[in-house]
């Protein structure tokens, strides 16, 4: 029976080519516009570590007090050196790392080459296992290296290839800011977007830069490798220079901790409050505890990492899709009711209402499929062209993949069938006797 309806549908669509083309174009453009904006939305709003993000937490400590809080009472979103180091020493989470953004220069061993500029982070050794960072060669440095302030580094595969070619560079030496560091690990391609572990230092959380070099936190501090990210101060540091920054209450350090279950979260919350309370007792804070402990999805939401433009664009495109569906419903209605005579004959010859439903929904489905095929093409073009319309750091993330293709087709067919429901209902209501008489 389905084959017969398919044939009927194709014949009917061929009969009014203009109307069919109009419907296919409408569905195609509507679906493509929403799928293109959706691909951008999906790229920026995705969970960077779906298997673990709910176990990763960002602690905030209120070291500035009431005068430094935002209008809604939030404490600073980064940490000063004193608190970050204290939290690292206390080591209350399963895994944790303070970190700051660096952008040192690297001098290639080849004397003929100019120095290059790289970006990266100064972190503690637990940073790597906490974020499940994949290594191509070697591994992270040890906790001992952290305390010994060892001159070791983990570099990206890109930097390794730039400096040493395809060879395994573990054990070789890299000159960073004029000092030699021994490579202990080389990362496999790893460049999560948004750069979720250090949102505060990446305006908006997205970056076109790669993370090329990681140094032990204390090693970088000792070598005076300056922070390249944001520095926020509630008061001017009393001493100048990088040392002055470390002694100040300026915030420039991001912090992340892994807490595996609710009990660990509660314990950590108590620990933070206890810490703030101790600071109050000691006279460093003149106010009660006002800490925050958000898990990664909550943190990204709080920091508005998904640009609101992306959400508005998606909404407007969905509005366009709805308008397209209303349009298709109107056109299908015109198309189906024009064939009242044919329906009357079929009904008079014994076709039940259900058969009319099946026939016309098949027709709607075929229009949807054709619209979806056009939509696929247009979505491909749309995703390709967002790269010259939207900022590179965001546009680079939008891509066409299998799931997007399937979703495009599915949305097109489902939506058109939905739009065809009412016209089909009207077609099924045609009274055979009345049609036969008037013809």
């Amino acid at each position: 029976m389905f084959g017969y309806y398919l044939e009927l549908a194709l014949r009917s669509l061929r009969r009014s080519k203009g109307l069919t083309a109009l419907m296919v174009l409408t569905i195609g453009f509507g679906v493509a516009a929403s799928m293109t904006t959706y691909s951008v939305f999906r790229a920026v709003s995705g969970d960077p570590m779906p298997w673990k993000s709910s176990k990763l937490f960002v602690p905030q400590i209120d070291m500035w007090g009431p005068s430094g809080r935002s209008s809604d009472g939030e404490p600073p979103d980064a940490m000063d050196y004193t608190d970050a180091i204290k939290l690292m020493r206390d080591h209350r989470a399963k895994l944790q790392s303070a970190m700051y953004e660096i952008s040192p220069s690297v001098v290639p061993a080849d004397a003929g080459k100019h120095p290059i500029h790289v970006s990266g982070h100064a972190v503690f050794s637990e940073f790597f296992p906490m974020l499940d960072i994949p290594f191509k060669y070697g591994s992270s440095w040890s906790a001992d290296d952290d305390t010994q302030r060892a001159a070791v580094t983990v570099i990206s595969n890109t930097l390794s290839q730039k400096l040493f070619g395809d060879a395994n560079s573990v054990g070789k030496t890299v000159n960073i800011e004029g000092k030699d560091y021994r490579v202990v690990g080389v990362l496999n391609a790893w460049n999560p977007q948004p750069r979720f572990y250090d949102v505060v230092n990446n305006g908006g959380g997205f970056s076109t830069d790669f993370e090329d070099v990681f140094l032990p936190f204390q090693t970088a501090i000792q070598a005076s490798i300056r922070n390249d990210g944001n520095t926020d101060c509630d008061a001017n540091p009393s001493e100048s220079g990088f040392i002055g920054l470390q002694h100040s209450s300026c915030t420039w350090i991001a912090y992340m901790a892994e807490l595996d279950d609710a009990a660990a979260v509660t314990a950590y919350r108590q620990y933070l409050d206890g810490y703030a309370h101790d600071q109050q007792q000691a006279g460093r804070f003149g106010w009660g505890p006002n800490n925050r402990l958000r898990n990664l999805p909550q943190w990204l939401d709080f920091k508005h990492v998904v640009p609101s433009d992306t959400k508005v664009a998606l909404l407007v495109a969905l509005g366009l899709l709805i308008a397209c569906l209303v349009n298709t419903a109107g056109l299908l209605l015109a198309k189906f009711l024009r064939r009242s005579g044919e329906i009357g004959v079929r009904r008079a010859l014994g076709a039940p209402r259900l058969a009319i439903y099946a026939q016309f929904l098949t027709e709607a489905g075929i229009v949807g499929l054709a619209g979806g095929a056009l939509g696929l093409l247009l979505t491909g073009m749309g995703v390709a062209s967002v790269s010259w319309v939207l900022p590179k750091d965001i546009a680079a993330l939008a891509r066409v993949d299998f799931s997007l293709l399937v979703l495009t087709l599915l949305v097109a067919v489902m939506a058109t069938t939905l739009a065809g429901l009412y016209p089909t209902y009207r077609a099924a209501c045609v009274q055979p006797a009345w049609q036969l008489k008037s013809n």
Partner: protein
Amino acid sequence: MTLHPILAALRKHKAGVVLIALQIALTLAIVCNAIFIIQQRVDMVRRPTGLNEDNLFLVTQQWVDAPDGDNPAGLEKLDSMQQADLATLRNLPDVASVSPIRSLPLLLSGSVGGVALKPLQQKAMVDANFFYGDEHMLSTLGLRLVAGRDFTAADVKHKGFRDDSEPVLTIITKSLADRLFPHGDAVGKVIYFDSSSTPTTVVGVVARLQSPVDPGENALAWNSVMFPVRQDANFARYVLRAKPGRLVQAMNAVTPALYAANPMRVLDDRSVRSFADIRARAYRADVGMAILMSVICLILLAVTAAGIVGLTSFWVGQRRRQIGVRRALGARKVDILHYFQLENLLIAGIGAVIGILLAVGLNLWLITRFEMDRMPVIYVAVGVLAVLALGQAAVFVPARRASNVPPVVATHAA
């Protein structure tokens, strides 16, 4: 022509009428809000920065193994390296002028501090963007001095990047001057930065200088201060003005000249950037949003027009006999044309009324959800006119076809 026959006919096509009206309502709601977004972005991008942007470019470079700026000897060494670079750049044949600079408007990186009228004030009166440069800063940037004087070579000091001791002299923007000294007598007055006790004297006022940090429109956008200070750090930025028409040549000459002077530094493909490039990058998201909204509007208008053509064509086909009868009874072609035009106006009018409600509703929702601004009524008014005109344009083709139905059709069997 009375509306009665039209209303009577519409009652027979309720579903079609509802669908067209609904589509016009949705189109109106989306197009008004989209055009409002586009207009806002265009207005934002077109604001002048206060700079003379033509022929302006920025050089950012980093020294390798630079002396430590935290001790006096290192600081002096860093400053002499910076001075050597400035001399090198000033000697380039295509360069008109050069100044060291901390940041430029729209660079999305810079420093911000508090300004107060009294010493040691805990809460600053207003926040301002800090610019640091030498006596060539104003002329290189092309800023317009509206009161007082420019910095002189004797005013210029140098200090470390994180040295927060307050400068003695400053030039401020008119917007900040008006905020601090509403009587327009800022020149010669004393202000205090970052709750410090050191007084800083205002020597001049410039017309306009946009924030480097936030390209949006907010309190900080136009409040800027300039200091006659060369900052010494392991990196340095220089702003250069090329001689007219020589921008490309000047930009290309910079990297080889600096490497020749001192190879122990990092200069990469992003180190030399024209101001046009900085501007384009800062506003890329806004321009992109405007383009995206325009494309969606165009698709939506085209789809709606196509829908009206399609459905009206169907109605014309359905009513051929009635049209024939009317023609046979003496209706002129133009009467038939007007009938369909009026019918469309009626449906589009109903759609527009619903659309106005939807448009305002959507705007209010965007305000609460995405901190958008309230849409002025003019956008809705223009939107209503636009959808009505779109309806009339779309209905014209099928209506013309209807008016060409010959009266003889009336005699055909149904």
